[in-house]
């Protein structure tokens, strides 16, 4: 230390405090750095070498037609076939989901499919079973088709997942760490003690944002590095673009963290609000599956969520190599969240 007697500016000391409090809490370090890696590793392994999907179907009856049907279906690679003697046991298997579809052959050579059309695997079972049966009965397709399967880097599930997890982690660590330390400080009357000093209040709030940035670099580097080395997930855009997206996302979520903790006096209360704010984004923002699965009427709201903007921008930057120009919409959404949440938090913040 050069001159320990000269005081550092308050914002520097406050940021250092944030930093020290974090690294001296081993659990926080685990949840921020280790947990996302475990999640990425687990999901990555689960979906990495996914075999072509198989679906289980039942054939009911002991007639020769039923036996023939079962044999024909067994020849299809996508199907696992189970034979039932009685209709009742077949229906039970259908109801409990053991089989996705049950085939019954009529005396006139007709076939009857029982299935629940709201189940995706039942729908795919229906088309697969039907195609197999029709072909084995002699149907000839009028169009010749040649299939080419693709498993390219950048379009696998893990490639989709890593930017999603990165966004999720930026949100979780920003909101949680801030909410937790602010509410604890309020609960222990530390906030009251601090406002009894000449400390500028905005600098106190700002220190949470500045300290987040230090951790952000580590968090992002760890997760992207992990994805790159273990699963060969590409980073096609420029590092600068990616860094800017992460930075703005972290600032926006930190502001949201300040906002959710602006009134709560207990950690329990704050965690309730935090979950309320984050849960919809876990589901709707397209972290684990594409948000376009939701009805069109929801889309404007889903687009306006900060996590959707973050995840979309990260995917575009990492997988499609999008430049800043292409990310204007997402960055605007994040910018609005940042400014609005911080201003409201500063206004309604309970200092004691």
């Amino acid at each position, binding site marked *: 230390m050069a001159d320990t007697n000269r*005081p550092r500016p308050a914002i520097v000391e406050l940021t250092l405090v944030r930093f020290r409090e974090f690294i001296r809490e081993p659990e926080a370090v685990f949840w921020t750095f280790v947990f996302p890696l475990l999640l990425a590793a687990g999901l990555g392994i689960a979906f990495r070498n996914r075999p072509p999907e198989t679906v289980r179907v039942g054939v009911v009856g002991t007639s020769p037609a039923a036996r023939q049907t079962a044999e024909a279906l067994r020849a299809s690679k996508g199907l696992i076939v189970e034979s039932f003697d009685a209709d009742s046991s077949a229906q039970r298997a259908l109801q409990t989901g053991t089989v996705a579809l049950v085939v019954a052959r009529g005396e006139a050579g007709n076939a009857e499919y029982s299935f629940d059309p709201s189940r995706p695997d039942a729908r795919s079972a229906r088309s697969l079973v039907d195609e197999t049966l029709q072909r084995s009965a002699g149907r000839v397709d009028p169009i010749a088709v040649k299939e080419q399967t693709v498993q390219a880097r950048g379009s696998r599930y893990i490639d989709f997942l890593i930017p999603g997890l990165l966004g999720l982690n930026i949100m979780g660590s920003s909101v949680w760490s801030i909410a937790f330390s602010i509410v604890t400080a309020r609960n222990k009357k530390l906030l009251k003690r601090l406002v009894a000093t000449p*400390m500028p209040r905005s600098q106190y709030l700002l220190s949470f944002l500045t300290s987040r940035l230090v951790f952000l670099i580590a968090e992002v580097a760890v997760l992207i590095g992990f994805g790159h080395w273990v699963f060969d997930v590409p980073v096609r855009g420029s590092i600068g673009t990616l860094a800017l997206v992460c930075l703005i996302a972290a600032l926006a979520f930190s502001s949201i963290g300040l906002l959710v903790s602006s009134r709560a006096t207990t950690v329990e209360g704050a965690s309730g609000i935090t979950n309320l704010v984050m849960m919809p984004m876990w589901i709707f923002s397209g972290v684990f599956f594409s948000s376009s699965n939701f009805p069109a009427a929801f889309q404007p709201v889903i687009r306006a969520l900060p996590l959707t903007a973050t995840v979309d921008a990260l995917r575009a930057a990492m997988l499609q190599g999008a430049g800043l120009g292409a990310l204007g919409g997402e960055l605007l959404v994040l910018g609005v969240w940042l400014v609005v949440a911080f201003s409201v938090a500063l206004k309604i913040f309970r200092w004691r």
Partner: protein
Amino acid sequence: MRERQGSAEVQRTPALSVRALVKRFADVVAVNGLDLEVRQGECFGLLGPNGAGKTTTIEICEGLTIPDEGEVAIGGQRWSHDARALRQRIGIQLQETQLSEKLTVEETVRLFRSFYAKGQDVDRVIGLVQLDEKRKSRVGTLSGGQKQRLALACALIGDPELLFLDEPTTGLDPQSRRQLWELVESLKADGRTIVLTTHYMDEAERLCDRVAIVDHGKVIALGTPRELITSIAAAQVVSFAVTGGETALDAAALEEIGRAVSATHAPRASDGGWELHVAAPHEAVPALLEQLRRRGVELTELRTHSPTLEDVFVTLTGRALRDG
């Protein structure tokens, strides 16, 4: 060491002046028309039971609570206009602050130092509160007394001219209390103005130049500890108890006993016995014994002590301080 302004003009401005302060909470009037004037360089005590309004009063003075009515001026400046400047001039120890347990003593003091434009040297203040050996220890590992001294260091680091200490020794063991008292005495010697609240009469007697006794949100007595004690006009307090407890003597008997020993008033119930304020204990005690003998009541306990601020409070309110 800080320099003190010596001009007569400044000396006359009170360090703190409080006029007709009122603060109501939902269902209670915490402060009910309270006036105070604290002189430069004195140690002023607010003494009263829990719930008397001491903490509310001191937090209004500290600019942490806004009063419903009344005015506070610190060295002529007011919270409504000069909050920024005032924050730089005062040092505060709150009744219950838990400083961050993950930080070390030195980091905590350094943090507070960074808030003040002018202040004391961090090492010097840590030395002053005798925490040199704990400099690198986490706050979470400190004892109650050490935490309280750290809180005092945070109050002192901005080199304040006016220091507010809210119940600085509550919950401390006797040794830590004495240590803190010595510290406060050294701050007085420095020439700082100190306002402290306490419900310990011995603390007020030892530390304070002047004391305001507060009850139900009002100042009910004001003066130096000596003046207050003399005001009850008793040379000694005689306490006694008899077999059969408080029911052994009825009101008429007590009144007669009071007259017989020339007490300032009838014996007052206290801790299962009675207390008498007397001017001449060498005459009062034999008279008391004679009275009890004549009534056939057996004495189980007899003590005399010099009156304290506690006795002043009891005389003024009819309640003991610790009864609340």
